[in-house]
């Protein structure tokens, strides 16, 4: 995958398949530590210890349509290629935490990609799931909790055109502000 946002989308899809009702996406870019950390935390069905051990093996998948699952292995490879690492904690019935650490300034680190578009897609595709999205760039932070938006909107769906456009602008502006050069 050419951008980290595509990896994030892929891992969040795993959480959706695991029937999570709450998914946290936490991105932290830290210039001082020279690290980009992505944490995806869900309250889905989790994995058994046995499956957790095998999950980085591309030939271990719960998918039945084909014998190969590459989501986690490719993320691990992308992280390790930048001097980083991948860690997964999971408990059956409680949920899963995937943590990927990248070397921020490493030449092989892919760009983060379009996080505003990625989160917009997730918010609107899975309206029943509560998403907590946090993106930190050094000292600046952008945070969205879809439950807060849901409380204001009541029964109006995220996919309603006015809401969709507002959400799209809100996410884009939030991301842009993070990336404005610090003085």
């Amino acid at each position, binding site marked *: *995958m*050419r951008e980290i946002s*595509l990896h994030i989308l892929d891992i969040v899809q795993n959480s959706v398949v695991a029937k999570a009702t709450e998914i946290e996406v936490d991105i932290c870019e830290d210039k001082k530590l020279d690290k980009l950390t992505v944490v995806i935390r869900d309250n889905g069905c989790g994995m058994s210890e046995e499956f957790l051990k095998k999950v980085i*093996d*591309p*030939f271990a998948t719960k998918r039945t349509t*084909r*014998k*190969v699952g*590459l989501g986690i*292995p*490719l993320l691990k*490879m992308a992280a390790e290629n930048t001097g980083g690492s991948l860690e997964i904690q999971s408990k059956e019935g409680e949920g899963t935490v995937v943590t990927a650490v990248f070397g921020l300034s490493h030449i092989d680190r892919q760009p983060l990609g379009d996080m505003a578009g990625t989160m917009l897609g997730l918010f609107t595709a899975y309206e029943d799931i509560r998403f907590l999205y946090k993106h930190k760039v050094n000292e600046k932070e952008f945070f969205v909790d879809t439950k807060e938006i849901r409380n204001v909107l009541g029964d109006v769906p995220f996919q309603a055109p006015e809401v969709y456009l507002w959400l799209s602008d809100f996410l884009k502006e939030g991301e842009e502000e993070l990336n404005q050069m610090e003085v």
Partner: protein
Amino acid sequence: MTVSEIAKKLNLAYYAGENLSGKNAKGCYIGDLLSLAMSRVMADNVWITIQTNINVVAVASLAEASCVIVADGCVPDDTTIEKAKEQGIILLGGEISAFDAAVALSEMGI
């Protein structure tokens, strides 16, 4: 064109799958971004890459590649070689660059 003829012509060593070298090969893809290779390597293709980890075997298996050539003298991990043997994937390698390999394959009419 068989994998065996390719290996001979390009002076490649077998890391795995020598017993399967009678297999036919047609067409070629060169690339190291595995997620892209997943969609671009066609069945029976020769796939040239410098990636060496186990995910290569997964992609080759998924795409039904005829064989994988690990170029530029890169050496696959032991786990990769083991998995390739287990999955029946032909894994070749040598000092040849991807460009030189592609030129030679083209001359052979692949």
